[in-house]
């Protein structure tokens, strides 16, 4: 292994080591705080190794992984998100200290899976990363085994995820069987004759179905609300952000490398999924009384918006596509973390504050918390001052420039419906009820810190988005330039 390859692999190595370290530490002494600090330390050290990896990017490692700026942008995003989730867990599971350490191990492994996923350059690594991510998520979702909902959510996710995995595998097998190659680039190289290879094409669509499941694009979205609602709030935050964003990042890498955008059909299908997702997500959320379900539906819609950006920008220029996706995902991650973080901050594993009625008058009981939640809802709705607006601006910019009017119209319609249910929550929070008998919400300092930082980021990146844009627009290096390292495929 060359030094370059080692440098490129460093983030993965450090993160894996951190996971092992936490596991060992738990075996030695069950301490929630210790596990947390180890996790946080591991995430931070991994974060610190990213510049090191960036210095050699873009680099192929063993033909399975491609470490490039595009991937590293998401690495940084996921590590920060994981850190936030870790902090939220610290607050959420505070009641039963020293019983919940394993959540951190799972968090680290699933983050590792996400990192692998976005850097994969080969179907095997795609599969491996996705499963590392997903299998770690099963226990995380069902973590509060004493309650019924997490269990239900866990088994639903497990079964359906298994189904999706088998679609994925079968699809990969079809692609492999027809083309005889597994690396993205090689698939792309044979992409010209894809039209004459119905099996490979079918395989690609099966893979798309699996990805659609992970992204909860309609009509693969049915699991989303149940799982979001059942999972503990910090896990939902992770699920909504890291899991989704990593799959989407992969989607972009995979489909641009295999040159799927050359196929009109493909874009049409994606566009259709986008339209259906936007409408279904927004309509389902309309009168939802559970905030977590509402956000789940909203995430369906958001994946639809993002898909519009994907399709539209894909019609234009690849660098714009990557920039759009990267920015939107970053914005969505920040916002969703803030939203679920706020839910998490007023819940714990004994009681989830989920019903809209739990939020009645929250603005007058805990103004700061409510302000963060309101900010994140406005950001989800795409109102200026927030980063969500800039994200939506990207989608519109791409859609308008590519003149994909049906898609743009759907986004407008969806946003219109969206405002209604986001504002319903806001309205509940600002209801002037007699708050005397409702307890003021105490805020765990860890959650407070996370929320404060996230709110600052949502606002800051909304007002001065240029920094984030600069970071996101590094990503066009996705497959430009000659990657270093050995690009050997199977001998």
């Amino acid at each position, binding site marked *: 292994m060359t030094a370059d390859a080692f440098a490129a692999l460093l983030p993965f190595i450090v993160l894996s080591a951190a996971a092992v370290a936490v596991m060992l530490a738990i075996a030695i002494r069950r301490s929630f705080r210790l596990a947390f600090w180890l996790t946080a330390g591991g995430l931070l050290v991994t974060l610190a190794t990213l510049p090191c990896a960036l210095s050699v990017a873009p680099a192929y490692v063993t033909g399975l992984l491609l470490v490039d700026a595009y991937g590293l942008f998401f690495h940084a995003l996921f590590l920060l998100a994981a850190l936030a989730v870790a902090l939220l867990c610290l607050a959420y599971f505070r009641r039963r200290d020293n019983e919940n350490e394993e959540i951190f191990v799972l968090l680290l492994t699933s983050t590792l899976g996400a990192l692998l996923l976005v850097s994969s350059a080969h179907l095997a690594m795609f599969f491996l990363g996705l499963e590392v991510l997903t299998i770690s998520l099963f226990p995380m979702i069902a973590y509060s085994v004493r309650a019924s909902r997490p269990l239900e959510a866990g088994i639903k996710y497990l079964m*359906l995820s298994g189904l999706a995995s088998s679609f994925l595998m079968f699809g990969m097998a079809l692609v492999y069987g027809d083309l005889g190659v597994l690396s993205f680039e090689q698939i792309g190289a044979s992409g010209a004759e894809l039209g004459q290879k119905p099996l490979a094409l*079918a395989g690609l669509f099966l893979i798309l179905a699996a990805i*659609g499941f992970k992204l909860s694009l309609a009509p693969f979205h*049915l699991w989303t609300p*149940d799982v979001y609602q059942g999972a503990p709030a910090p896990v939902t935050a992770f699920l909504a952000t890291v899991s989704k964003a990593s799959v989407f990042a992969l989607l972009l890498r995979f489909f641009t490398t295999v040159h799927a955008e050359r196929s009109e059909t493909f874009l049409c299908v994606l566009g259709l999924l986008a339209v259906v997702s936007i409408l279904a997500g927004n*309509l*389902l959320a309309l009168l939802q009384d559970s905030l977590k379900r509402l956000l789940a539906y909203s995430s369906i819609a958001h994946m639809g918006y993002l898909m519009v950006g994907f399709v539209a920008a894909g019609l234009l220029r690849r660098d714009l596509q990557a920039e759009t996706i990267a920015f939107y995902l970053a914005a969505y991650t920040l916002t969703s973390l803030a939203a679920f973080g706020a839910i998490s901050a007023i819940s714990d594993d004994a009681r989830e504050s989920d019903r809209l009625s739990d939020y009645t008058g929250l603005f007058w009981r805990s103004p700061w918390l409510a302000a963060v939640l309101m900010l994140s809802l406005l950001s989800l709705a795409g109102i200026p001052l927030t980063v969500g607006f800039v994200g939506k601006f990207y989608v519109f910019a791409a859609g308008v420039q590519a003149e994909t009017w049906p898609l743009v119209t759907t986004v407008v319609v969806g946003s219109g419906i969206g405002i209604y249910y986001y504002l319903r929550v806001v309205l509940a929070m600002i209801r002037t009820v007699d708050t005397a008998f409702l307890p003021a919400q105490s805020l765990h300092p860890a959650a407070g810190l996370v929320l404060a930082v996230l709110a600052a980021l949502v606002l800051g990146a909304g007002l001065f988005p240029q920094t984030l844009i600069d970071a996101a627009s590094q990503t066009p290096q996705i497959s430009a330039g000659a990657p270093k390292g050995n690009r050997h495929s199977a001998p």
Partner: protein
Amino acid sequence: MLNLLWLVPFMPLAGFLILTASEGRLPRAYVPWIGAGSVGLSAALAASLAFELLALAPEARVFRQTLWHWMAAGDFGVDFAFYLDALSLNMLLVVTGVGFLIHVYSAGYMADDPSMARFFAYMNLFVFAMLILVLADNLPLLYLGWEGVGLCSYLLIGFWYEKPENGYAARKAFVVTRVGDTAMALGLFLMFSQLGTLDIQEAMARASTQWPAGSALPTAAALLLLGGAVGKSAQLPLQVWLPDAMAGPTPISALIHAATMVTAGVYLIARTHALFALAPEVQTLVAAIGAITLLMSGFSALTQTDIKRILAYSTISQIGYMFLALGVGAWSAAIFHLTTHAFFKALLFLGAGAVILSLHHEQDIFRMGGLRRSLPLVFWTFIVGLAALVALPFTSGYYSKHEILLSAYGSGAAGPWLWAAGTAGAILTGLYSTRLLLVAFFGTERTQAHSHYGSNIGVPLVVLAILSLAGGLAKLPLFPALPETGTEETGGSIGLATTAAPFLGVAIGYLVYRTGTASAEALLQLPGAETLRRLWFSGWGMDWVYDRLFVFPFIALARLNKGDAVDRLYQGIVALTRLGHCMLVPTQTGQLRRYAAGMLFGAALILALGVWS
């Protein structure tokens, strides 16, 4: 001295502002002094201006005063400027003079009213607006005064606001006149878009040079202006508001609805006579409107029992004469009749007011009777007023009306017809005047009268009576503001008939109401008479028609669509969205196997789309 012209309108304005600012906290004794005093000062100033202006040569009798630049936009620009010539001077004198007398009278009439300050404030505002109207140098400023007097009319008709019917009458007056005003506004727009100016003199000059006589443009412009004039002056077809306007205090009826405001239409047409001269058809129409109106309202006056409504219909009728005069091109005759009418009709209204006050707000003439004994001063002045109204020789009304009728006779082919209508109107005038006099002032006393009016009621009556008698002698020379129309002497028989007509009316009246030769009750027994009476009583049923044509449909439409039908569209969208929600929610069964089936469906769908498309 002429430079003080601006003070004439602004002194009443100052009075208005003082009275308004005091919010009724001023001692009651001071209120009339401010209210009437400001108008009195204006009147005095107007008189001195008159002397100064009349001292000049006739051609030089023009004075223009620009106060400030009002508004400009692109090629449009008007000043806040006054224009004084013989015509506006005539109006100025009438408005301030008669206005002052009525203010003095009001001090007595309204002495017991708790809202006296508000009354005088409105009155002062009215005088201000009326003076702006007559002095305006340009049409927008005239329009300012025009609307201003309308507003004051509204305020004063509805002065006793506790009674909802007063408010209704006030709003009716405002809205009906507003219909005319809107036509007039459109006329202004038309003139500006074609002539490029709204300065009256300039516009008239340009119209005469740019527009050939009888062409479409001047006809349209004149028609639209005529719309404004018939609205304000209560002529057919917009006369319906004036009888109801009698709901206001009687001095208001005298000032606004007899002497000044209602004649604004006459003034407007006289002011823009050059335009009307370019539109002969419209001028004929003006004459026809005048003739028909004077007849119709003459008949209506015949059937009324309310003393003020009789006078109101009589006013409509007399303004009909003025329109007749305008229509036949007897400009100065119209203005002359305007002036004399202001004197005698103000006198009649003030007299009626004194009667009403003495009878504790009894207005039905059939409950009066015998007032000549209890109210001698009122009786004698009233007789003078009525004499002028019916145009008995040597009263002021005789000179003006005679001139009108003779001019009408000599005005082309339709002339004799117009003359006949006017003369028939004169007979009617004589008839209803006699009826009013005989029923109210003679016979037995049916309601006890308490004559508790002071000198501030008596003096205006006397002064106005003198003016009614002698006003015919003091005719202001209106040339060159209005072209001189030489009344060609028509045959003596026509003149004689014209002079005799009122006597005929008086005689019939005397027979019916005094001697009982043919009593009114007996006449009503004739077939169809009762129907006719009701038709006349209701002002020819115009209210009935308008209610059904405009008012009821509008109200029904408003009621029908109170909730805004357009909103249904959006409610439909909302319902559609909700429907979508309700249709989609059942897919979220929570059952794992259904979800798996859903995924399978999705996969099959995109496979089908992707592979077999």
